[in-house]
C-alpha cells in the first residue's frame, strides 16, 4: 500500500467521527432552523418557514436580545478578568518566580472541578441564609449581609462572573507559565542591564514576546465564555428574571423546555457566527507558523 493511501486510511476514522458528530448535526440544525420545528406536534419538523425563525429572534423576541447582551458583557468581563489574573499568577509562578511551589499546587484545585460543581458550590456559598460568603463578608464589611446576591439582577451577574473567573484562572495561568518559559531570559536580562525598570521590562520585552500565547488564551477563553451553559444552569438558571441568561441557556430552554427545536436551531446558528470568527483567529495563531 502506498504511503499516500495509508495516510488517508488512517485519518478516515477520525474524519468520519467528526463528520457524524459535528458536521452533519451542524447542517441538520441549519436545515431545521428553516422549519417550524415544534416537538409538541407529531409531524416534526413542520412547514418550511424560510428565515422566519431568524426574523422572530431579531424583531419579536426581547429575550433573545437580552441573552445576546448578557453573553456579550459576560464574555468581555470574564475574558478581561481571567486573563489579567492568570497573567499576574503566571508571573508569580513562572520559573524563578516567588511562591511557585506552594501556590501552583493550590491553583490546580479549581481547574479540577467541573463547571457544574462550581455552580452548585457557589450557589450554596451565596445562599443568603446559610451561605459561607454571606457569613464571612458580613463579618468583614457590616451591612453587606443584607445583599441578596442571587436575587439581585446585578449581583447575580457578578457572582456568575466570579465563579467563572475563579474556575478558569488556573488553566490559563498554566498556559501563560508555558508561554513565559519560552521567552529567552537573555532578552529580559539585557533590558535590565540597560537599566530598564521591572515594569518597562514587562511592558516592552515580556508582553510583546508573550503576545501570541496571550492571543491564544484570550481567544480560547472568549470561545468558552460565549458558549457558557453549565455554570449558568447550575448557579442562577438564567435568573433572576432573565438577568443572567446567556445565549446557550436561551437555546437550551427553547429547545428542551419549550420544545421549539426550529427556533432553538436558528439561535444556535446565530451563535455559530462569532464562534467561527474566533475559531478562525484561534487557528491562525495556533497553526500559522509563517
Amino acid at each position, binding site marked *: 500500500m502506498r504511503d499516500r493511501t495509508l495516510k488517508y486510511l488512517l485519518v478516515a476514522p477520525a474524519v468520519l467521527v467528526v463528520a457524524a458528530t459535528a458536521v452533519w448535526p451542524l447542517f441538520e440544525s441549519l436545515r431545521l432552523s428553516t422549519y417550524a420545528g*415544534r*416537538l*409538541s*406536534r*407529531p409531524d*416534526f419538523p413542520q412547514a418550511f418557514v424560510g428565515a422566519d425563525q431568524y426574523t*422572530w429572534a431579531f424583531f*419579536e423576541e*426581547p429575550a433573545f436580545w437580552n441573552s445576546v447582551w448578557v453573553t456579550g458583557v459576560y464574555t468581555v468581563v470574564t475574558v478581561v478578568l481571567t486573563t489579567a489574573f492568570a497573567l499576574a499568577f503566571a508571573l508569580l509562578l513562572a520559573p524563578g518566580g516567588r511562591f511557585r511551589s506552594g501556590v501552583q499546587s493550590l491553583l490546580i484545585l479549581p481547574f479540577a472541578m467541573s463547571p457544574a460543581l462550581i455552580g452548585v458550590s457557589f450557589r450554596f456559598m451565596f*445562599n*443568603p*441564609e*446559610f451561605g459561607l460568603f454571606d457569613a464571612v463578608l458580613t463579618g468583614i464589611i457590616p451591612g453587606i449581609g*443584607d445583599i*441578596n*446576591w*442571587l*436575587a*439581585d*439582577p446585578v449581583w447575580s451577574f457578578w457572582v456568575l462572573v466570579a465563579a467563572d473567573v475563579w474556575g478558569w484562572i488556573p488553566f490559563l495561568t498554566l498556559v501563560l507559565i508555558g508561554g513565559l518559559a519560552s521567552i529567552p531570559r537573555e532578552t529580559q536580562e539585557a533590558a535590565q542591564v540597560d537599566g530598564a525598570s521591572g515594569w518597562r521590562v514587562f511592558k516592552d520585552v515580556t508582553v510583546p514576546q508573550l503576545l501570541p500565547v496571550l492571543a491564544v488564551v484570550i481567544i480560547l477563553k472568549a470561545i468558552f465564555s460565549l458558549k457558557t451553559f453549565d455554570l449558568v444552569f447550575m448557579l*442562577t*438558571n*438564567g*435568573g*433572576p*428574571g*432573565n438577568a443572567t441568561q446567556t445565549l446557550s441557556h436561551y437555546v437550551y*430552554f*427553547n429547545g*428542551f*423546555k*419549550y*420544545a*421549539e427545536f426550529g427556533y432553538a436551531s436558528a439561535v444556535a446558528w446565530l451563535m455559530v457566527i462569532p464562534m467561527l470568527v474566533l475559531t478562525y483567529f484561534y487557528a491562525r495563531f495556533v497553526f500559522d507558523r509563517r
Partner: protein
Amino acid sequence: MNRQSFPMLALACVAAVLTAGSATAQELPYGLKADKPYEGTTLNILSVVTPQFDGLKLRDGEFTELTGIETEWTFIPFGSLQDKLVTEGIAATGEFDLVNYLDSWGPTNAYWLRSIDDLLEEDGISMDRYPPAFAKSAQFEGETKGFPLRAHAQLMFYRKDLIDTPPTSWEEVIEIGKALKESNPEIAPLALYYNNDGNRQNLFVWLNFLWAAGADVFNDDGTPAWTSDAAIKATEDYVALHTVEKITNEASLSFIEADARQSFVQGNSAMTPQWWWAYSSMINPEQSTLTEEQVGFAGMPAYQGETASYAISMPFSISTYSKQQEAAWEFLKWLSNPELEKKNATEREVAGETIINNVVTHLENLQDAEVNAANANIQIAAFASLENSDIMPQIAEWPEIGDLLSGAIAEAAAGGDVRELMTAAGDQATKLLKRSGRI
C-alpha cells in the same frame, strides 16, 4: 380401551374441562387478565426518584407473580426528567413502555402518550376515583393520557410552638407575621419563594391569589387574563407580602420551594406553604431540626374570603412507541390500584427497606381512616385543600408562557412595577400564542 375404563376416562375428561373452565374464569385482582397472556414480557418504566415509587417498585413482585410480566425501572432525578422525556419523544425508539412526567409537560408530549379512554371503559375504571384537579392533570384536550399516581395538594405548614392558631386567611398570615416579628425577631415569619428558578415555582402561591380573586391565567379565547384589574390586584397583594408587609424571610427573593422548606426545617422561618409530601421530611430528625410536636399544617389561607389552591401531579402514561402497550396497560392497572396505594402509605417497611410516603391520590384513600391515622391526618387536610383547586393551564406553550410570568413576578418581588411587568409579559405571551396558532 375396554368398556370398563371408558366411563372413567370420560369422567376424567369432563373433570379436566371443568377445571380448565374454572381456571379461565378465575378472576385476578385489579382487573388483570387471567392466563398470563403477556408472560415473559419485560416492561421498561421511566420514573422520577421518590420514596413513593421506591415503595411501588419493591412491591411489584406481586404483579410479576400474577401476570408473568417482568419490570425494569429507571429512576431519574426530577431535575433531569424533562430532558429525558423530550429525548424519548424525539428518539421514538420505544425504550420506555411507561413514562412518568410532570403534568405541565404533558401537553408538549401528548402526541406520543397513548390515550387510555378506551381501556378505561373496557376495564370499568373511572377517573372519578381521583379529585377533579388530579384527574384533569392526566388529561389533555378531552383525552385521558394516564393516571395521576403522584399528586400533591398545597398546605400551609407552621410552627405549632410559635403559632397557637393557624391562619385561615392571608390577612391573618400578615397579622401573625407582624406579631411574630415583635415576639420572635430572630425567626422570619414566612418563607416564600419568589425566585423564577425551577419550574415556575413562584407561580404556585400566586395562583391561590389569582383564582381566589376570581381571575384566571387565560381568558376563554386563550388570550392572557393576568392583566385584568382583579389579577393585577391579586398579584400586587401576593408580592406585597414581601415588599410592603415585610413578613417574608428576606431570602425569599432567591428562594425556590426547596429553599423555603429548608429554611423552615432549619428553624429560620415560622410558616411556609408547601406540598403535602414535605411533611415527612419536616419531622424526620435526619432532615429537620423540628419535631412532630413543632410542625403543624392547615389548608391554604383564603384571599378576599375565598380559598383556591393549586394542585400538581406526576402522571404515568403508556408510550405509543412501546411495542408492549397491552402489557403496559396491565401494569398501569396494577400500579394504580387503590389497595396498593393504601399499603404504600401505611406500611413503613417493604422488603426490609424503610419507606416513608404519605402520597395517595384516590378519593377513598384521602378520606381513609387508616391512611390518615398513619400520617397524622395529612390526607384529610389535603382532601380539604383540593376541594377548590386547579392545575396550571394544559397547553403546549405553557412552559414558555409560564416562564414569562414567572420572570415578571420575580422582578416584581424584587421591587419592579407589577402592572408594567405583568402587562409586558401579557404582550409577549400574546405574540407567542399567535405565532403558535393557539389564538
